[in-house]
């Protein structure tokens, strides 16, 4: 046949591509926040150094752990290890939720140290940037909740399990979840170091 071009579609699933593009948009949003931070910090007349909350170190460790769990839950899902998948899914959910709790405790710590949202602009930035990240993680936790429920409802019998695992379009959901979750993790790592050492 005259079909000279074998068109390579679906090298990357469209939903995945959508997710990567959404991540680009989120990166731009945080790039705007952090560049505003840099510009303001250069104006040293008003900038005061804000004591960075200890709790943020623990929350960083927690979200890193949650990323590991997320990865394991995806791996076990692909390998059809249902009970392990359930376990890691729950662990991710718990770690994600603890991260949110720890961020709130971190803000409490800031507040106790006299850093107010409406005080010096350095403190305001810390609240707003970590707050924007908090909202992104909160969205992710809702997703984790959904997938945890799926983990317990979808694999009732071996046939179901096989269908769920083998069908590429059923896998995509969890893969998107994992991509997003790793993104908010890396994003926090960036913010964690940026806010302390920039």
């Amino acid at each position: 046949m005259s079909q000279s071009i074998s068109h390579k579609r679906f090298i990357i699933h469209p939903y995945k591509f959508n997710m990567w593009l959404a991540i680009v948009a989120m990166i731009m949003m945080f790039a705007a926040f952090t560049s505003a931070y840099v510009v303001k910090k250069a104006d040293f007349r008003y900038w005061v150094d804000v004591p960075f909350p200890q709790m943020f170190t623990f929350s960083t460790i927690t979200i890193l752990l949650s990323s590991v769990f997320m990865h394991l839950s995806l791996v076990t899902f692909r390998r059809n290890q249902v009970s392990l998948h359930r376990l890691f899914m729950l662990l991710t959910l718990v770690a994600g939720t603890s991260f949110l709790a720890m961020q709130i405790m971190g803000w409490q710590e800031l507040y106790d140290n006299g850093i107010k949202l409406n005080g010096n602009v350095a403190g305001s930035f810390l609240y707003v940037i970590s707050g924007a990240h908090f909202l992104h993680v909160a969205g992710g936790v809702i997703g984790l909740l959904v997938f945890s429920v799926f983990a317990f409802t979808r694999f009732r019998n071996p046939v179901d399990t096989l269908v769920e695992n083998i069908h590429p379009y059923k896998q995509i959901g969890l893969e998107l979840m994992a991509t997003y979750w790793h993104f908010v993790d890396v994003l926090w790592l960036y913010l964690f170091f940026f806010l302390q050492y920039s």
Partner: protein
Amino acid sequence: MSQETTIKEHLETHVTDHDHDHDHGHHDHHQSFISKYIFSTDHKTIAKQFLVTGIIWAIVGGGLSVLFRIQLGYPDADLSWMKPLLGKWITPEGHIAPEFYNALITMHGTILVFFVLTAGLSGTFSNYLIPLMIGARDMASGFINMLSYWFFFLSSVVMAVSFFLATGPASGGWTAYPPLNALPAAASGSVAGVDYWLVSIVLFIVSVLLGGLNYITTVINLRTRGMKMFRLPLPIWAFFLTAVIGLLSFPVLLSAGVLLLFDRNLGTSFYLDQIYIGGEALANAGGSPILYQHLFWFLGHPEVYIIILPAMGIASEVLSVHSRKPIFGYTAMIYSLLAIAVLSFIVWAHHMFMTGMNPFIGSIFVIFTLIIAVPSAVKVFNWLTTLWRGNIKLTPPMMFAIGFVSLFISGGVTGIFLGNSSIDVELHDTYFVVAHFHLVMGVAAFFGMFAGIYHWFPKMFGRHMNNTLSYIHFWGTIVCAYLIFFPMHWEYMLPRRYPTHAGFDTFGMFAQLNEFITIAAMASFAFQLIFVFNFFYSIWYGRKLKEQNPYHATTLEWTTPIRPGHGNWPGDIPEVHRWAYDYSKHGRDFIPQTEPLSQYEIEHGEHGDEMDSDVIAHENDDHQS
């Protein structure tokens, strides 16, 4: 091979139907009114939703401009007759209250820039044309696409509600600069109007981003077999790059807006510093209003290209189809679009020459700004050379496309003046600027949009619009557009955003000119109503489309049935064998993209030996037999 095709088709069907599993495999299913016309995931319906919402907003936004033009043209007249409409915003002397005048111009700018020329233009045509022109059943995610419209709708509702606030809608300009827009005490529109404005814009950004994700993914991933990037029709390239620009710039506006919301409502000082208001010193310290301007214009400048690129793409297609000639310099057109897209991100500070920025930084922005003239000029030359010796059909879409080129040149030339910081110092915030951007991105983008609507109306609704009314609309609009905005160049020392210039002796000489412009503006608005009537009347009562391909165009949307269902092609998606612009080739009027290259034919862009006349003659024989 055929089996492979079937699998691919199946997968494709699966992807596009992922969000509504109930109708697998067959597309002409029965849907309820709600799922077909309201919460539809069909890109064609969503496009029409964007279009109709955009038209409604255009009437509102244009109507506002008529109101404030009346105030400007007749500063001494008694406008008490507007009371039923504007109520307390008419002063006892019968003038539009100055604070409401500001609200009118703010809303006019916001509505037209965001709701009409971004959502209404890009939202309509990206949605409608991308799947049809690249050969896809629908967008990558129909559900996200639907969300995109409904976020726009929500955003529209919030903005519409803000008109009815006791303190009036936002009145600090469409750019919403702090501190004017950050402090409720600064202006009546800043009391609550700006909060509504910001919430509406945040929702709008979500809408643009959700839509943009889909446009980019669809163009990259869902092209039909053979549809290489360099075979795409130019509108698709334009929509694709528009979405990329939007994806990179709108999140920055989101950040800027969030910080402004914090400053307004939670007492932060991101943008506020050392302000006295009503004799009282505010506690805010350490912020910078210039920071907001940087963040805003990092979106704001790309935004003007988000508006004009789709119009450019549509005009390119329409000019080529209706002059029965390939677009001149197809590859140059693509690279110039790319160049404009890249440059759009490094020129934002040319809106800020007056902020006291370092003149050396300013001169860098001047240089980049002026460089944009190069790809813009490439495009203009290519449009003109496409027309050159073409077999021109002066149909309504063609008239508007030619009008677009005319307006783009007229408005673009003054961009060279304004891009120079030294001249901008003089011309900043005068009617010269108003004339410049209205011609180059306001009216020009509208002309691109009209060209698109007239051109694809038969595809959208299976009926034709009335030609006579279309010509009246065209001539009325282009004459009025020039009558409004050409004289404004003479008002190069008249400041913008003044509700009246009556108190200044210097500006007395412009009184009659202002009146003249107002009359032209009112006439222009009346001509748009003709279009609105023609549009809605023709949807239901227009002459029926009998031919599948009324313009004898090469592109894929004309290979679908006259009224395509959800999924666009009833059978397999056609395969593409050539670029989109084989017009008047080898003695044939047009060759559809779906037709394989013949034995002796060389594809556009591939270098072969010059074909000798024998071969061409041979080709002609083949096709005429």
